[in-house]
């Protein structure tokens, strides 16, 4: 196994070949906000929060999708990056109908976390107030599109962990929405096994357990990684950490 060296914010570190810049940042304790990333799922580089400045590159690079190469010099905390991250979070808050006070995920929400991480105390962009629906047709869970940030973690979780592919994205642009089956009520999609991986994967209160009400969400984002580890290495989390 090859070992590569790189520099993040002026500090060198060594990582095994195949490590992504995101993993390298986490290893070094560099705080890098993410939303569409979830350990255990294939990364997509959609939220653009994890972009880094890479010396010699014409464009910013998404840490979640960029493998470390020998001698890379990256910066994670420049004024430009901070400004861009803040705008990204502002765009998300303005795009949907995010009312934290009455949300199941209040206090356990990765969008709130991202706002704190970028120092957001108010949004400067025009609130869109889109007309979005709530799908409560499933017996155990619900989907509130008002809270959805289109991270597609649910789509990937259902496809990659459960293999049911209940969720996908329909339409395009600001009309994008998560759909179940062939754009059916969730409760009528026979492929759904009610495993709840999508609810565990959702960073906000969009997908929720009907037994949880305002501020009661129990977030379990580590589920996906645990399942991935279990399948790849034949170990469950009570059987010790994979070396």
């Amino acid at each position, binding site marked *: 196994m090859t070992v590569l060296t790189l520099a993040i914010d002026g500090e060198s570190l060594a990582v095994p070949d195949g490590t992504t810049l995101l993993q390298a940042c986490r290893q070094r304790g560099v705080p890098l906000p993410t939303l569409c990333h979830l350990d255990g799922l294939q990364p*997509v*580089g*959609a*939220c*653009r929060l994890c*972009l880094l400045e890479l010396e010699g590159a014409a*464009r*910013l690079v*998404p840490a979640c*999708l960029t493998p470390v190469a020998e001698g890379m010099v990256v910066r994670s905390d420049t004024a*430009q990056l901070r*400004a*861009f991250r803040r*705008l*990204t979070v502002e*765009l*998300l808050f*303005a*795009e949907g109908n995010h009312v934290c006070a009455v949300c199941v995920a209040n206090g356990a929400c990765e969008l709130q976390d991202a706002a704190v991480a970028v120092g957001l105390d108010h949004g*400067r*962009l*025009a*609130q*869109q107030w889109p007309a979005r629906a709530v799908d409560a047709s499933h017996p155990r869970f619900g989907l509130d599109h008002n809270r959805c*940030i*289109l991270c597609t973690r649910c789509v990937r979780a259902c496809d990659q962990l459960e293999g049911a592919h209940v969720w*996908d*994205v329909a*339409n*395009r*642009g*600001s*009309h*994008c929405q998560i759909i179940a089956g062939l754009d059916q009520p969730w409760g009528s999609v026979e492929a759904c096994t009610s495993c709840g991986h999508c609810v565990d994967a959702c960073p906000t209160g969009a997908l929720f357990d009907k037994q949880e009400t305002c501020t009661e969400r129990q977030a379990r984002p580590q589920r996906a990684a645990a399942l991935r580890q279990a399948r790849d290495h034949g170990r469950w989390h009570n059987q010790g950490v994979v070396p």
Partner: protein
Amino acid sequence: MARIRCCTASSCRAAGGQALLQALEQARRDQGLAPGALPIKAVGCLRLCARGPLVALDAAAHGGSQRLYGAVPPDRAPELVQLALEGHAAGDGSSLAAHGIDAEHPFFALQQPVVLEALGLVDPESLDDALAQGTYSQLQRCRADGQPAQLRACIRRSGLRGRGGAGYPTGLKWDTVALQPPGPRLVVCNADEGDPGAFMDRAVLEGDPHRLLEGLAIAAFAVGAQLGYIYLRAEYPLAIARLRLALQQLRQRGLLDGLDLQLRVGAGAYVCGEETALLASIAGGRGTPRQRPPYPAQQGLFGCPTLINNVETLAAVPAILRRGADWYAALGTGNSRGTKVFSLSGALPHTGLVEVPMGTSLRTVVETMGGASGVKAVQTGGPAGGCIPAALLDVPIAYETLADLGSMLGSGGMVVLPEGLPMPQLARYFMRFCASESCGKCVPCRAGTVQLEQLLGRFCEGQGTADDLQQLEQLCHMVQATSLCGLGQGAPNPVLGALRHFRHEFEQHRLEADGAGSAP
């Protein structure tokens, strides 16, 4: 022998070209002439779309000049037949004189047809006519020579760069695909021409499809591909029909020699002109782009190295091989060699198609050839481009020169903007397009274009504040720098271009007594 050529491409069709063609055929019958006595040939684009439907009369004598007529009503078809037979131009007293088009006008005289050399001459629905024009002779020569590396070197030497807008060196891309580890390769032709105001590729697809197919087959040979796709936008039904027919003809004649070429029709998404989204669409998925690297040349369709080139790029290949790389490289300027096809539209009399050497000035194209006057600016590069103001029109057309002015060469759409057109309005038009066409995968493009469109709306209404202007610029830079693909990265360009050259139109501040912030 005297001959009549009728344009049957989309623009002339929309102007009544089919009715005129039928009237001409009827008039010929009425005169008791056999088709062989006066061939009436349905051809592709005759260039000056503004005056369509266009008809060209070829004199019987070799070297006789072409006479061009525009918008002749079908009931005057007998006079056209008469003129064709008599071999002279309409006299001043004749009613058809008013329809005559000066074929020596700079619009025609300054063109240098390379990609378009057979357009308007060849019958797009006849493989035999294409063969008679020399199409497929280069493909046969390449196969006979059996030297793909040399072929790629020739294209490298020609300096041909991607004509879809990115301007990537074509020969280099061909090499990159060819030199990948052994395994299947694919070729793809990007015929999803989506820029508003661009119809260069459409003209080739409708009017000279075999030229494109020859270029594609040569490219396949050059990189060792046995399978190829043409991804063609659904909004070009005539091109789809012509290409389907051309492929059928090729298969029947056995000219493809083991190469499997298939047509894939798009479904109305501009974003599917982006190469990774295009490949996703061919593979049956949602047309959303993905991060690059890896580039399609390394890992493309079905995970295989994939060569993807634009229509115009591929259509240039046969002529380059026939006339030589050095001949092509001698045309043009700097790092932009050869010729470029442009579609002219907007505030000018000569709306239509031109092909000129790179390095021709923008002023020559829009004013001398296009006949434009009272120009405020010229928009190049479509929704990812910028505007070149009238004062800077002497810029030689090339990839680098237009980029230096805050615009880009793009795919070739050139829209002439008249004096009095408010630039915030133009910027909003393109932003609205991008917001509507955004695939929605990444936050900056999906949500940012919507915000930018609304901000621009405030400027259109004269309600833009200083805070709005600051927000506009900050958001533009963010969307440009952080978007996942070229659609989002390019969406702010018309705004930034308009701010660069016409900032005063945005700086009409609405004074706020209370110092209020931006809109709710």
